[in-house]
């Protein structure tokens, strides 16, 4: 079991006898992370105004940083001198960084992808910059996260041109080789390959099988959650988890809505990240089992309940919906308070899933969860179908 180098060891501790869900422990240089895990996104070396101490109290075990942003500010030189991002931001637990490629393609219209890498113009001084697989790994080696991502050839998920998708998928495999070759810290950092192929099952299968031949400690499933139909989304996740080595962690990139988390854990995913919980906090939206509360709405003006009675976060302990209603989008404190709750919500959901997997009650948990979200049992088809594919029937309860 586990990877070949000591930078990561993954142990599956319990498996759901019905679905593909599993609970495990992923030992990383900075922390032993319990899976399935949600990783909040702290783009620029910080999480929406929260202290690293608060994140620890919220049970965050691994958080994500963005290589593209960090490479610009504070910049590689500063991070190098600081001794890496862990020390720079004083975060003692695990970190994961992306490759920077996704940001470039999504943020910068002028990006051009060639076999060499991603070419773009710097928004800072308009100079031409080339992000190669080697460069991405070099920066990530300086940042020093426990898990780093290969540079992949990113294509919009809903893109239709088969030839371009095929090129991107194959190029991603070639870039993986270059990333692995350029990697200078295999003893304390793990490169995860990214399974590509968009919505094409054949290309995805090829991509996954190709990655399986490499000496890596875990895998990511990329190129999803980009606006595709849910009916197209889940079969790609399922395909990935079916093929990928079950002794290694599987990370589904950019997914973090509660219903998606529950379905994808059932499909066998171990790690997730998403900006949504903290981004939505900024707009006054608090996550609850049934969806979200927009605290700006008048109905909360005199509501003396906490956001969620069953939540034990510092926000729900001390503050009412009525008070939050008064300060959302006015005071920075409101954003901090809702971020705390939303991260607590994500963490609690993951913890509950782990416990149910360990107790052998995961299928029942899934049914109960969706019955609460859809009280009149109007389940979307994709949820019924995806769960059915792994043996969980939520319709005839």
């Amino acid at each position, binding site marked *: 079991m586990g990877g070949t180098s000591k930078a990561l060891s993954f142990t599956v501790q319990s498996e759901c006898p019905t679905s593909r869900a599993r609970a495990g422990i992923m030992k990383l240089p900075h922390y032993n992370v319990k899976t399935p895990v949600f990783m909040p996104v702290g783009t620029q070396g910080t999480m929406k*105004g929260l*202290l690293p101490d608060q994140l620890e109290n919220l049970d965050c075990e691994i958080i994500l940083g963005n290589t593209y942003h960090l490479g610009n500010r504070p910049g590689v030189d500063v991070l190098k001198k600081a001794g890496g991002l862990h020390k*720079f931001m*004083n975060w003692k637990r695990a970190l994961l960084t992306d490759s920077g490629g996704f940001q470039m393609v999504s943020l910068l219209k002028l990006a051009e992808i060639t076999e060499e890498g991603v070419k773009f113009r710097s928004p800072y001084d308009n100079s031409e910059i080339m992000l190669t697989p080697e460069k991405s790994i070099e920066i990530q080696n300086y940042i020093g996260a426990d898990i780093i991502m290969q540079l992949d050839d990113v294509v919009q998920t809903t893109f239709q041109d088969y030839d371009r998708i095929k090129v991107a998928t194959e190029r991603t495999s070639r870039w993986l080789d270059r990333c692995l070759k350029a990697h200078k810290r295999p003893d304390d950092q793990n490169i995860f390959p990214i399974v590509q192929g968009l919505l094409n099952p054949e290309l995805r299968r090829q991509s996954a099988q190709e990655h399986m031949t490499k000496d890596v400690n875990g895998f990511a499933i990329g190129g999803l959650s980009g606006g595709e139909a849910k009916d197209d989304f889940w079969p790609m996740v399922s395909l990935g988890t079916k093929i990928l080595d079950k002794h290694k962690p599987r990370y589904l990139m950019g997914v973090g809505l509660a219903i998606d988390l529950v379905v994808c854990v059932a499909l066998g995913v171990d790690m997730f990240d998403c900006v949504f919980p903290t981004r939505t906090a900024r707009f006054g939206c608090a996550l609850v089992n049934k969806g979200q509360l927009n605290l700006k709405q008048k109905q909360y*003006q005199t509501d003396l309940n906490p956001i969620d009675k069953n939540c034990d976060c510092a926000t729900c302990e001390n503050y009412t919906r009525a008070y939050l209603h*008064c300060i959302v989008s006015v005071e*920075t*404190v409101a954003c*901090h308070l809702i971020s705390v709750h939303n991260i607590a919500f994500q963490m609690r959901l993951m913890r509950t899933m782990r416990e149910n997997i360990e107790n052998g009650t995961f299928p029942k948990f899934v049914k109960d969860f969706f019955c609460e979200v859809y009280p009149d049992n109007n389940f979307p088809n994709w949820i019924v179908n995806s769960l059915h594919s792994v043996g969980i029937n939520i319709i005839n309860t």
Partner: protein
Amino acid sequence: MRFIVKQNGCGSERIGRLTGFFKFPGAVIETPTSALFTQGGSVVHLTSDVLSRVFSSPKLLWVPLSNSIQLENGVKVQNDGVAKFAGLPGHVACATLNNLSEVTPSGHFEPNKVPLWTKNGKKMLSANRYMDVMEVFKPDIILAIADGRTALNEGSKRVSKAVNRTSQMLNECVDRYKAAKELQNSTLVGVIVGAANPKKIDECVQNVLKHVDTLGGIALEGITDGTVESMDLNIKTLNEVFEKVGNAIPKNLFHIIEGCWNPTVILSAIEYGWDVFDGSYPVKLTNAGIALKLSFDVTKDNDTMYLLDMVDQRYKEDFTPILEDCECLACKKHTRAYIRHLLNTREMLASVLLSIHNLHHFDQMFFYIRKHIASNTFAIFKQHITKQCEMLKTFAPDRYKGLNEAIDKQTFQKNKKIRVSEVLSSGLVSNNCT
């Protein structure tokens, strides 16, 4: 609530205690002290959880109605006071009309009403309406409604009206206070305005003294209208006002000064017997990206700047804390380089960390003030602090200004917060201590 003078210093400075709060009979707040300035009921930038990591004992919350009136409906329904509603039930609240360090339009008066400038615009407030809100907010300390936003160079007609209006409204507040059972757990504070005119301020003092049996303290307004120009005052002029009013008021009342005054002014006021300050100074520094860094050790000369412009590029690779040996969470766990990065990327954690340090450090200043009063060495401490404040003048402000410009210009074009250059030219620092 009770105020007790515990010890007098060599001059008029004194150590006192605020005790016997309705909800915390055991709580003690030692004076001289600074309140924690709030916005929308919250200590600016800090959640109650984070605040509890900075201060473990009850603090005085400074609650201006201009930024908290929107809480009224909610506080009313909960019926347990503004501090509890704002998630800070472990602290005591002091409510006032305006944030005195904020610039608001001038004029807009009606007979027996003053304007309240909120983020949703102007509301005209009578003394009665003000006391209605106080019955809902249930603060431990209520500053009477007043027309206090006049600068020292204000025309005598305006000052005269301000004093008359303030006196009239104080009479109404006192009547309401005596009549309402709900208000008996709060302490009423009379406000003195009109410092621009010696005759009128005497009149104002006389009216406050009429109610001396009802009042627990007095507060001084009418020195600044909130503009930086109005705060750029000669310390002598200010001292005259502090001395005159300080002497005219019975010593058993606690003395409050409102406004965003720098340490030099605060120490001067304390020397004349003033006890409580509104806490807007560290907040303003935080919002400008500045860290406060006074040396409190009177045995050592401090030849470094007492304000650090944390946006400055010089801190880019400075992996030391804001202040070596500072016990605050920001200094114990984070570096100047990290805070500078957070400011540079406009991340909210910058304001959180700066607040933590600035509030802690400002609080420490008052701790040392009390310590030196207790050991009869206040004058030495005052000189030690004043000297550090004056030093900023000998450094050319350009030394600070120019260095900012190399940094990502766009970031700062969008930044509406005041910058260091503005702070340097304002009453925030020691321009006014000659």
